[in-house]
């Protein structure tokens, strides 16, 4: 163990604040897989210059930094415990701009699937007789607890879209997140429609911006980027009905990534 290592470590623990006038950026997470923060790290492969534009002061997954003086907070994850609310509110008080990073933070993602089942059963199934040891409540997106200024949708987020959102925020513009369906991007790519190949696809009602990646790779859209503001749900249900799906099947497609939209906190409150 060298002196430099220990000294470097002391600096880490103390955290640090920027004196270079760059916006200070922090990353936080709640219940999630941390894949969106990983995608942020991966965006450096092609956009290493992002580090010239901002000062990262807190990023537990990738750095030993614990700064609480920041301008922009990127928050990944759903809120699933009352004590998460306190931490999120503290982040909100500090941040000039709070960004929901990815589907867990934006829509509740698959975390909200538990809201479809009775809470006692869910806890007992995983932790058995020790169910009471662990605090949990219905999964919810950040916006159910605090004001969210911008979102980066998707499970996981799209690397290029993340970079575009950061650029927009740095010049004070509203981030360019599409409000039209995935079908538009699929057509632009010249993909054969998944329905025409006998598959099922949530593309007609799901927010674009992913470049229709799943249909492009032969798999139907599962709705991970959330439902657009004005979906034609009746037409969608008709299409799914024509494809031979039962009401239960259709509910599966609408709840896989969007259970919070469908039932909110569901059977938990």
């Amino acid at each position, binding site marked *: 163990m060298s002196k430099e290592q220990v000294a470097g470590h002391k600096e880490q623990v103390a955290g640090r604040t920027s004196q270079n006038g760059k916006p200070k950026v922090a990353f936080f997470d709640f219940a999630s*897989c*941390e894949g969106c923060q990983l995608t942020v790290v991966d965006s450096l492969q092609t956009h*290493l210059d992002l580090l010239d534009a901002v000062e990262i002061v807190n990023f537990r997954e990738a750095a030993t*930094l*614990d700064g609480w003086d920041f301008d922009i907070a990127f928050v990944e*994850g759903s809120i699933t415990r009352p004590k998460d609310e306190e931490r999120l509110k503290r982040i909100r008080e500090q941040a000039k701009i709070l960004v929901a990073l990815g589907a867990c933070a934006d829509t509740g993602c698959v975390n909200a699937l538990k809201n479809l089942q009775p809470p006692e059963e869910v806890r007992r199934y*995983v932790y058995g007789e020790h169910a009471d040891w*662990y605090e949990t409540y219905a999964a919810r997106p950040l916006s159910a607890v605090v004001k969210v200024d911008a979102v980066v949708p998707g499970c*996981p987020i799209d690397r290029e879209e993340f970079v575009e959102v950061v650029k927009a925020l740095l010049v004070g513009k509203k981030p360019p997140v599409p409000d039209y369906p995935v079908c538009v991007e699929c057509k632009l790519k010249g993909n054969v429609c998944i329905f025409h190949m006998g598959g099922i696809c949530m593309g007609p009602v799901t927010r674009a911006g992913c470049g229709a990646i799943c249909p492009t790779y032969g798999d139907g859209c*599962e709705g991970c980027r959330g439902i657009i503001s004005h979906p034609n749900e009746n037409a969608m249900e008709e299409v799914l009905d024509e494809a031979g799906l039962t009401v239960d099947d259709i509910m599966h497609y609408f709840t896989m990534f969007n259970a919070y939209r469908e039932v909110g906190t569901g059977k938990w409150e």
Partner: protein
Amino acid sequence: MTTLNVNVHYVTRVEGHGNIVVDVKNGEVKECRFEVVEAPRFFEAFVRGRPYHEINHITSRICGICSVGHSTTSTRATEKALGVELSEQAWLLRKLNFHGEILDSHILHTYYLVAPDFFGVPSVIPLVETHREVVERALRLKKLAGDLCAMISGRHTHPCALVVGGFTHTPKERELREMRERLVAARADMDATVDLFAALPWPQFERETEYVSLRKDDEYAFIDGVVVTSDGFQYPIEDYKKVTNEYCVPFSTAKWTKHNRESYMVGALARFNNNYEQLHPRAKEAAAKFGMKPIVTNPFLNTAAQVVEMVHCVEDSIRIIDELLTRGVREEKPAPVTVRAGEGVGSCDVPRGILFHHYVYDERGICVEANCIIPTNQNLANLNADICALVPQIMDRPQEEVRLLLEMLVRAYDPCISCSTHFLTVEFV
């Protein structure tokens, strides 16, 4: 007499939230533990009621770093439950995709999470100024691994095209040839990686334990096989509970496991110890540069075992691509699924160790029972035992050094706390 208070609330540069708590009064260790404080997510509960084709795309979301691993394990469990057979080509693509993930995850851990400790910096970011060539190499290798995964299943994090029965997408022979050229070119980067990590002053600490991994007759096992332990036990995958024996501890939202002893270790070091003979010759050469031959009992060298596996995966990926190109690549759809009631256990040795997914389906193909046992959970008792064994050896050193060494020990396990809750914070009280 030594008095020491270490309380690391949220260990950094690990995936998820864990604390280290160590309390030494008058030379006596009062408290010593690794706590997992990540919010529980209840995957096993909420996949019940979902149709078979959703399950691997839901359980992939347990972890953004090893989502190919979860997705592969999940599809294997479902394929066994529903009696679905994979084509030879699909098998080769599954293995190639898996190598891409082992590479991606190990590069993240070795370069981004572990290396900063040895350079005395808080993250990889300051190294952009001081060691630009190291950072650029890491980014280059990470991009290669991610592109390898994306070529097969669409993207590394939450693969789209990996489904029950195979893949909904087939890479083009041209793409495979280009990937082969990049892998061959990456040998220089792998040599530099081995030299960089082999020269680091790895902390000295030995504690023998039981090592658990998969094993196969014909290759270094990552997907399927049998469960073996360094204490001489062997089980079919279906008997996984005889190894894992999960139990709850109050300071951890992740469950613990034990087998023949109070704890066991899984991951790259366990695989290295159990299956060394099946490593590619170049990977064995890399191990020799670290002075490693089984049985290696220093847990800090789990990171070194990851470097060795990276070499293996680069070489074996080249071999698999050659085999695909020799056979000729056909556009294939996933194998057809006949929905039926059934039960299946899938197991893969994912970047952090052996993983099990176990499902029961009803006659409509709806999941009615689910169980997932995560590598990090299986390592928690062993990590805790290592912390408790290391503290008395180092407690006379300055508190900051103790703290750093304990954090480095936690990082060596490459814990994935999100997975484990399915994980943890270091708190020194």
